[in-house]
């Protein structure tokens, strides 16, 4: 992890993802929206973070924010990360050492690049999946709601989302509709070959279940059962795909005897399918093999199910094996996407530089305003101008203001677009040294 000089505000990104942590650890770090709503402001205040937002998905838990450079910054942020999780009601017994080992920290440009890549789905387990952009947007909206987001994160979010849109529309990455659900069904196909001869059971009726159901339908399955806590939602899904049977989640024991491929993606914080349930179902299956696909976070299916005979359990991490298959054909698209991201980063860096010179420009504008106001008062107070009507005085004030605005505008332009051989910071420093005026409040 990198250290930075004290006093310098910087963007940070601290997190764990499918690249650094196994699903067992990631599910311990998965935080619900309600939890984050309560904890984010506390963490910001307690750890002196200028801004902070959290992205919690099945593949990552990342903190984005702005912090002032200090000694042992990495340690400080790690403590903030751990503290956030300790404050969650569902995080009892968090394996801190394991979390520390899985954490990665990026600062400034690297952090911004990572945010762009995440929002554009280039860092996703399923390269180019669409869900992450929505999840990223929701995470930032939450930070805005709880007022832990400031101008830097706000701008970073806007730019990252704009780039994500370009990546989707201008590269081939968005051509094929891919998602975790697609990858899960493809994994089932790798195991069973022909899927059309099998009965499917989808547990849950959320977005992932919806995508899965539609994809399953392309295989013309023998049967499709959708089980959900709210049966009406299951019925809606069945109506949408025009096939299948909607049931309550209470009927799972019976459904498990009939379904050969089970895909679970509920938002339940607790286990939905126990090993005992599957063991009992097996008794009536006469050795027919069964695939359990757990794409929920936290996981829905007891990992012990994987040890049962004729039962093949796969979780999100196992999808890596099928998503790699399409990698080659999407690699080129990803390379194009990386170019778009680098362009986006250049724009973002330019915007950030304006932040650095803004105080100097504001100071110069203040200096000019003060000067003009003072000189105008002095000049207009003279006898020669006593005869002026209020209208004429207003016209003169407008003239002074226009001259002031023109001068400060020109200076801003020169500073923001410096001539060759000069840097923005140099000109801003010179401006501040020459005209040390009152600054606008930030």
């Amino acid at each position, binding site marked *: 992890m990198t250290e930075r000089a004290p006093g310098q505000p910087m963007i940070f990104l601290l997190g764990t993802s499918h690249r650094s942590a196994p699903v067992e650890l990631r599910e311990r770090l998965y935080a619900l929206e309600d939890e984050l709503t309560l904890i984010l402001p506390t963490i910001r205040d307690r750890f002196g973070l200028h801004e902070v937002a959290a992205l919690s998905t099945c593949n990552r838990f990342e903190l984005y924010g702005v912090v002032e450079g200090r000694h042992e910054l990495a340690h400080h942020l790690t403590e903030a990360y751990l503290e956030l999780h300790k404050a969650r009601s569902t995080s009892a017994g968090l394996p801190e050492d394991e979390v520390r080992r899985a954490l990665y920290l990026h600062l400034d440009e690297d952090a911004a690049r990572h945010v762009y890549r995440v929002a554009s789905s280039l860092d996703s387990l399923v390269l180019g999946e669409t869900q992450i952009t929505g999840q990223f947007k929701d995470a930032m909206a939450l930070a805005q709601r709880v007022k832990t987001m400031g101008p830097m994160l706000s701008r970073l979010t806007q730019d990252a989302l704009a780039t994500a849109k370009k990546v989707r529309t201008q590269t081939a990455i968005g051509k094929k509709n891919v998602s975790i659900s697609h990858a899960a069904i493809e994994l089932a196909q790798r195991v069973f070959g022909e899927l059309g001869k099998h009965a499917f059971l989808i547990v849950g009726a959320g977005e992932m279940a919806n995508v899965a159901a539609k994809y399953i339908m392309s295989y013309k399955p023998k049967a499709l059962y959708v089980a959900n806590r709210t049966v009406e939602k299951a019925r809606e899904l069945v109506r949408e795909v025009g096939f299948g049977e909607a049931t309550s989640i209470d009927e799972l024991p019976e459904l498990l005897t009939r379904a*050969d491929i089970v895909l679970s993606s509920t938002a339940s914080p607790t286990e939905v399918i126990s090993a005992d349930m599957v063991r009992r179902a097996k008794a009536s299956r006469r*050795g027919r*093999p069964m695939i359990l696909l757990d794409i929920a976070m936290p996981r829905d299916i007891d990992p012990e199910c994987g040890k049962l*005979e004729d039962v*093949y359990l796969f979780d999100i991490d196992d999808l890596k*094996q099928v998503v790699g298959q399409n990698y080659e054909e999407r690699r080129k698209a990803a390379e194009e996407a990386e170019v778009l991201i680098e362009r986006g980063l250049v724009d973002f860096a330019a915007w950030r530089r304006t932040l650095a010179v803004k105080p100097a420009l504001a100071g110069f504008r203040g200096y000019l305003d003060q000067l003009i106001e003072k000189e105008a008062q002095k000049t207009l107070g003279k006898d020669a101008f006593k005869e002026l009507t209020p209208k004429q005085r207003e016209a003169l004030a407008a003239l002074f203001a226009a001259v002031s605005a023109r001068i400060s505008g020109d200076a801003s332009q020169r500073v923001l677009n410096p001539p060759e051989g000069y840097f923005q910071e140099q000109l801003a420093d010179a401006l501040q040294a020459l005209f040390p005026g009152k600054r606008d409040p930030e």
Partner: protein
Amino acid sequence: MKAAHLLSNLGLLGFALASVVFLVAQQVGERGAPESGRREGPYAAVALGLFVAASLAVTGALAAGFREVGFADVTSLLLAGSIGWLAILAHTVFKMRLIGAFVAPLSTLILLIRWFVAPARMTAVPEAKTNVLLAMHVIPAVLGQAFAIIACAVSVVFLWQQSLLKKKLLDQIPKNIPAIDKLERILMLSLWCGFLFITIGLLSGALYAQLNAPALGFALQLKAIWATGVWLWYLVTLLARNAFNWPSKRVAQMSLGGFVLLAITYFGMGFFTAVADVATGGALGP
């Protein structure tokens, strides 16, 4: 006689060459390349061609032998031919592209033993014994063995694939073998067919012995007892699967065990009785 002998030797040569080419195909990692639009890789295609040709040659040898000497002692040829055609069937119907690689060496071994042990000329079975009942004993018994061999080959693939799936090593599963659920179905089908034919073979054998050779010699007694044991082994496997839900893995392991027992019936019993004969100075009788 020359035709039968020649075809039988050609069959042996074909199966031996097919074994080698199948091995080469596996070594170079041919996957049947479905993405390239080809059903087989070039080596696997050659191996399959040799395998089919060998099965045809063995079948031709059987036909030629029958035409030339009538009922002949052709169990080895019948077994090699049966497993050959069953493997081709499994390959065609169930897309079990790997099965030839298992069956070809086995057929080679069977024919090689015959080549060393059996006389160059086919021996006609004595006239008294050549009746329909004998054919009804030999053919189902050999078919039962052939299905058991196929079940064994399927079990090996099944256990291998299951182990890879349990370890979640999907990338290591070759694309030219059927999916796990299909393997399970082929395994059960082979076991049921094998069991059915072994049952018919045993019953017709018992009937034949009653009518033609009421006093069985020691070697035949031992073979009959052992064969009944093998039949019981398969019966227990199938019953346990259906009544007690034995997992497929255990069924596959039982099928491997069944194959070993069958091999003993086929090869080991003769060897054992020969040794016992020498040890007892012929006191045990024929």
